[in-house]
């Protein structure tokens, strides 16, 4: 069946179930409730003064009723410094557990060591916001029989509420925890800041293990994860490589190209009509989409504009702007460096939020609903403004849906920043390989060769043209880029589906076909 963007979606997939095709960004939401029923959280009881402490991760896992076909979940706040996911799966594998569903909020290069488990049937299903590196490449080549499910951050919460993802065991890394399992990421030698992605797992998993390398005296403050959800606590020497988790501060890029694009994007924002006192702002964590903050900061100072809050994906640059008095509040679902963790710990206006409050559309309004301006990247974008952030132009799975479609759907102004081509590969295409974020939620594309406004927003285009910005028709820009790079030969795929991409409301916006590698 075709979804509303013209992508072919199967009606049913073995191992996943019935699929609902995407029918527009706000179609399901405008009903006012979610059709799918939610499942209850686990039913537990605990006697007073019990010990939850385990001597080792292995012991804790043994006690957590491991069984074939179980679903194991993790958060990805440790980024490329994580070691627990690999450790846990190795332990399960060595126990002889098979047919595992892996539900990590995202997957990084540091998780490549589990590739053999995808090949030998230890892991048979994956739910994730992103897959990269060797895992991503293997997935694209069809290493699993059942397609992986790519979801947004908000969508993951929804999936857990509805039982689409039924977590048997969650292993929550924490940089500080007490003997009862109160846990946080905001301090400790391996501090990583917000632990927002793990909150839903703690609530719904049948078994919750908190793992820390820093056992503190009861109580561990703040109670980012609270003890009433935690079954077991394990103390280890290290939860990960601190240098890869969160170092120092995040620098604004020096790349002239990224800075150029960022400057143009800031000009767009300034003249969009949304750069007003009290505006709410979200930027990315690096490259051009972070550099925009530098130019917006200057403009805010020059024009004397104070914003309301920043959201994300928070880097030290955002903290600087908070401390400058340019914004009143930061809502932090993921912290990218040590300065951010510190600010989260010490500044009451730097607020840790769980993924549900951040981006789940099925509640009384997540915070992405209140964003005015968001700046996002793209691996590819097409002439209908659909964005791909999951598959590269060579067909490899190497990105993440993340908060992309969540924030784009809420923002009054969604700005996509990217170069018009990278190396010899065009980024602006007639049709992207994989749609993650639908064009109807994208307002402007900013490249170094021109700015393209979604024709659905003529007033915005007028504002920008009047400000003298270099506005081009996206079709013209696409042709211009083709002339520069030449037209790439199309990739070859088989009929086998290796991944399905969920929109945040649970409908399927696209599928990923198996890549034919030569």
């Amino acid at each position, binding site marked *: 069946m075709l979804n509303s963007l013209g992508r072919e979606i199967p009606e049913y997939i073995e191992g996943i179930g019935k699929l609902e095709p995407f029918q527009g960004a706000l179609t399901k939401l405008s009903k006012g409730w979610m059709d799918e029923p939610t499942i209850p959280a686990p039913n537990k009881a605990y006697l007073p003064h019990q010990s939850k402490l385990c001597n080792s991760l292995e012991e804790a896992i043994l006690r957590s009723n491991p069984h074939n076909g179980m679903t194991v979940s993790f958060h990805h706040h440790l980024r490329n410094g994580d070691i627990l996911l690999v450790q846990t799966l190795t332990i399960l594998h060595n126990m002889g557990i098979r047919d595992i569903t892996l539900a990590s909020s995202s997957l990084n290069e540091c998780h490549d060591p589990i590739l053999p488990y995808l090949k030998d049937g230890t892991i048979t299903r994956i739910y994730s916001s992103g897959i990269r590196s060797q895992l991503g490449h293997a997935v694209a080549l069809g290493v699993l029989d059942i397609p992986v499910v790519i979801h947004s951050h908000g969508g993951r919460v929804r999936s857990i509420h509805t039982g689409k993802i039924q977590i048997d065991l969650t292993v929550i890394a924490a940089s500080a925890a007490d003997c009862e399992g109160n846990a946080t990421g905001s301090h400790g030698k391996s501090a990583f800041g917000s632990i927002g992605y793990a909150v839903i797992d703690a609530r719904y998993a049948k078994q919750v293990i908190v793992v820390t390398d820093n056992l503190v005296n009861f109580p561990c403050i703040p109670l980012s994860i609270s003890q009433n959800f935690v079954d077991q606590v394990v103390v280890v020497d290290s939860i990960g490589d601190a240098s890869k988790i969160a170092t120092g501060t995040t620098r604004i890029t020096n790349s002239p190209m990224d800075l150029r694009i960022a400057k143009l994007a800031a000009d767009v924002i300034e003249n969009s009509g949304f750069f007003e006192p009290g505006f709410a702002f979200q930027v990315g964590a690096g490259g051009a989409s972070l550099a925009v903050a530098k130019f917006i900061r200057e403009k805010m100072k020059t024009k004397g504009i104070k914003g309301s809050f920043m959201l994300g994906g928070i880097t030290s640059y955002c903290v600087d702007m908070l401390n400058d008095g340019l914004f009143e509040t930061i809502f932090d679902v993921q912290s990218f460096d040590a300065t951010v963790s510190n600010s989260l710990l010490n500044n009451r206006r730097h607020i840790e939020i769980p993924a549900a409050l951040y981006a789940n559309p099925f509640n009384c309004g997540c915070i992405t609903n209140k964003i005015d301006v968001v700046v996002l990247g793209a691996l590819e974008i097409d002439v209908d403004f659909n964005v791909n952030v999951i598959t590269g132009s*060579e067909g490899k799975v190497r990105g993440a849906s993340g908060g992309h479609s969540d924030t784009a759907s809420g923002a009054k102004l969604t700005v996509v920043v990217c170069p018009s081509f990278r*190396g010899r590969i065009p980024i602006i295409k007639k049709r992207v390989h994989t749609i993650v974020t639908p064009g109807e939620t994208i307002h402007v594309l900013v490249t170094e060769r021109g700015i393209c406004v979604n024709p659905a927003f003529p007033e915005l285009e007028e504002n920008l043209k009047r400000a003298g910005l270099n506005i081009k028709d996206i079709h013209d820009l696409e042709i211009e880029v083709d002339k*520069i790079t*030449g037209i790439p*030969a199309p990739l070859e795929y088989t009929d086998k589906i290796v991944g399905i991409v969920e929109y945040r409301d649970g409908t399927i916006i696209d599928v990923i076909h198996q890549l034919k590698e030569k």
Partner: protein
Amino acid sequence: MWAQVNQQLLTMKPKIAAQSGTFESSDVIFLIEPLPENSGRKLEMSSTVMQQFGENFKRIIVEMLDQYNMTDIHLIAKDKGALEPTIKARLETAIKRSLDEQEGTLK
């Protein structure tokens, strides 16, 4: 006999080993070596965008080798996503260097 000599007069062979280009992204390296008589053309091509532009890459190389009538040549090409004018420039440079015919430079 007459046709054979004619053919030999028309084709060009590299006189010396030559190289052009850099390993930088968006650039391409060409290495040329002469081969013994009647070896034809031995082409080894690799590219970071082989999937998308391999055909185009090969076509440019073959066309320019034809244009200069090159034979008995071993050509290694390592591309990192160079655009067409860059590929052509680097190849022309390597060919001219291999023919010991480059002007206006130090060797």
